[in-house]
């Protein structure tokens, strides 16, 4: 059996397991017309490009946005299943400045099957529709002997109720979304849930490829969430969405299926609001959206005692974003910008535990004491062009800045010394110097570009290559780990074959 076959086999088993249960459920629920196979394209009888700009996933066209905001209810019911998978390959520019390249760059230069998704998606009633995704990560965890193990878990889930009141004087869409990811309910591609490239490397299979670069995100989503949003689109001009989130456990555990509840970060109650406001305008072949979004989440330290208020911290996110599209066959042009500022206030206990004073590995040089809160700013801009929904390319710029915090420092000056320690005599080393992923400055800053070329020979298959070039990583361009590694050493070529059906 080849390496590739060994990787695919557990995935097929997992998918088969899900299928057997779901086929029964869907056979009961969806006895109506089922021409051909799965999901939205079958439901509407339309081509992918009607909803996805130039066939780029997940970016939506104006029609795709209306399909989503009206609750995935256009068309007729069909078997609501699709699958998606990704084979990929990545190569990091320099693997020599590492103590153990086989550990630091485990999948470097090796073609892998990184994972796949099963989608259950479709119209349920005239007002209710579902988009849900179960994702299998072929490299989800690693056993002590270094062997990777695959695992499936709930990915994006968006169950909607929508109604549209339209006549000559008004066009009003109102809806509710029950979901597990703040902004997954949003129809624009510049929101946190949707801005990543698709396909992306599995985070655990390839570090430094674009999926690991900074994207606007709600870090509260590190915790498994369940939320309900109410939204409105008025006259195709003003979009507003307000949601509240809680931890997806107990009755809401379906939203986090496959994630072990123990040790995850928990939110306090349901008063964790997400909001979104956008203005949008279409003219001719052009359309533009300017928007803002944000979230405030009260989160306990992962795995901590949630009856102790001293373990409670807070994430506050505020973002602005804009998207311009020009869609006129055979051309698709998209320009996107997004900026998000996140302030994380640490819990009293976490702050106390990280008590100063800190000194560097020389035992003398003092460094800034840990902050009670940290702020990060992430900016991302992307320009893409697709010809005939077949040949495409994009250029993206990303820049992350943030406060310097000794908590982020994972490297000292002296590779042979103790690294960072709060004891000049070094008996209790807090963090030893780390090559490759070490952070000498305690700064989260990262900056770089991602270039992409792709080819979509069939609407269900895409072949592409991405090159991510860093000029800042972990706060510095040169010697960011204190052991001589430079940001550009992490430049990565990522190639993929993606398919969906």
């Amino acid at each position, binding site marked *: 059996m080849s390496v590739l076959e060994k990787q695919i086999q557990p995935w097929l088993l997992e998918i088969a397991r899900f299928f057997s249960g779901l086929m029964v459920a869907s056979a009961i629920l969806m006895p109506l017309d089922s021409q051909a196979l799965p999901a939205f394209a079958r439901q509407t*009888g339309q081509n992918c490009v*009607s909803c996805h700009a130039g066939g780029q996933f997940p970016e939506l066209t104006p029609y795709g946005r209306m399909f989503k905001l009206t609750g995935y209810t256009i068309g007729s019911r069909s078997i609501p299943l699709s699958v998606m998978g990704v084979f990929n390959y990545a190569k990091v520019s320099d693997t020599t400045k590492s103590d153990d390249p086989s550990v630091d760059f485990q999948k470097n230069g090796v073609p892998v099957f990184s994972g796949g998704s099963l989608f259950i998606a479709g119209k349920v009633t005239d007002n209710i529709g579902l988009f849900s995704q179960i994702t299998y990560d072929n490299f989800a965890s690693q056993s002590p002997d270094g062997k990777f193990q695959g695992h499936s878990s709930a990915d994006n889930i968006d169950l909607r109720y929508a109604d549209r009141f339209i006549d*000559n004087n008004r066009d009003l869409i109102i809806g509710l979304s029950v979901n597990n990811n703040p902004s997954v309910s949003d129809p624009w591609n510049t929101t946190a849930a949707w801005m990543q490239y698709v396909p992306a490397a599995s985070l655990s299979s390839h570090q430094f490829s674009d999926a690991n670069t900074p994207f606007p995100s709600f870090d509260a989503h590190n915790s498994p969430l369940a939320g309900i949003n109410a939204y409105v689109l008025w006259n195709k001009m003003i979009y507003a969405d307000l949601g509240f989130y809680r931890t997806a456990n107990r009755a809401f555990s*379906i939203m986090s299926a496959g994630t072990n509840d123990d040790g995850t970060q928990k939110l306090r109650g349901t008063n964790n609001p997400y909001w979104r406001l956008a203005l949008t305008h279409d003219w001719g*072949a052009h359309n533009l959206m300017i928007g803002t979004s944000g979230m405030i989440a009260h989160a306990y330290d992962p795995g901590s005692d949630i009856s102790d208020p001293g373990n409670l911290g807070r994430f506050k996110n505020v973002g602005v974003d804009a998207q311009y599209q020009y*869609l006129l*066959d055979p051309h698709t042009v998209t320009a996107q910008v997004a900026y998000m500022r996140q302030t994380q206030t640490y819990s009293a206990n976490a702050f106390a535990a990280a008590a100063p004073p800190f000194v560097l590995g020389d035992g003398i040089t003092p460094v800034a004491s840990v902050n009670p809160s940290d702020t990060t700013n992430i900016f991302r801009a992307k320009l893409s062009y697709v010809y005939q929904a077949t040949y495409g390319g994009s250029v993206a710029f990303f820049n992350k800045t943030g406060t310097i915090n000794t908590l982020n420092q994972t490297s000292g000056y002296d590779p042979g010394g103790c690294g960072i320690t709060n004891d000049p005599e070094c008996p209790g080393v807090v963090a030893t110097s780390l090559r490759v992923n070490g952070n000498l400055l305690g700064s989260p800053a990262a900056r770089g570009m991602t270039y992409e070329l792709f080819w979509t020979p069939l609407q269900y298959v895409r072949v592409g290559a991405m090159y991510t070039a860093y000029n800042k990583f972990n706060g510095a361009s040169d010697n960011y780990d204190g052991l001589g590694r430079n940001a550009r050493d992490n430049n990565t070529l990522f190639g993929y074959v993606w398919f969906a059906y």
Partner: protein
Amino acid sequence: MNGISLLSVLALLATASACSNIERSRDLANPNVPPAVTAMQVCSICHGMDGNSGSPNFPRLAGQQAAYLVAQLEHFRSQQRSDPPGPEYMWGISHHLTDGQIKGLAEYFAKQVPLPNAPVDAHLMAAGKSIYDNGVPEQNVIPCAACHGPKAQGIEAFPRLAHQHADYIVKQLNIFQNTQGRPGTPMENIVHPLTGENKEAVAAYLQAFPD
């Protein structure tokens, strides 16, 4: 996956699925949905509430000849019309429509009022008008007005062209000229000698059609 939660959600959905909302339905396979509802809930997304689509990707339907719209919807439904808008959008939209719904949709858009467009370059306008009114005699291209009418208003199966998006007209002329995507019309032979410049000019003239 938590089987009990999943089942309870599915049961809830199954209960809800008994409901249908005919007055605001986007179901394209329910013969009971009135055509005006489908026109407003679905067609309007691309073609506009009043049939005056904003994007040139989608033809304007306002004031279009009902007989022409019926024929096109039937050709999409049977997949006889296979130019890109067919597989991309219209095959799916029309797949389950009944004859009655098709007729109703055609009547809905036929009675909408076409809106004027911005003027275009005078030279292009003059060249387009000449082709429309007189054809291109040296290339044996007959006048468009002969079938589509002096006001480009169309008649029965001959479509209205006035105020149509120029980009859409050029693309359709190219389809008639180079493909078999729209069989069963005389256009294939008529447009054969047209040059790129001819097509641009007549399309610009029709988009900006003077009232």
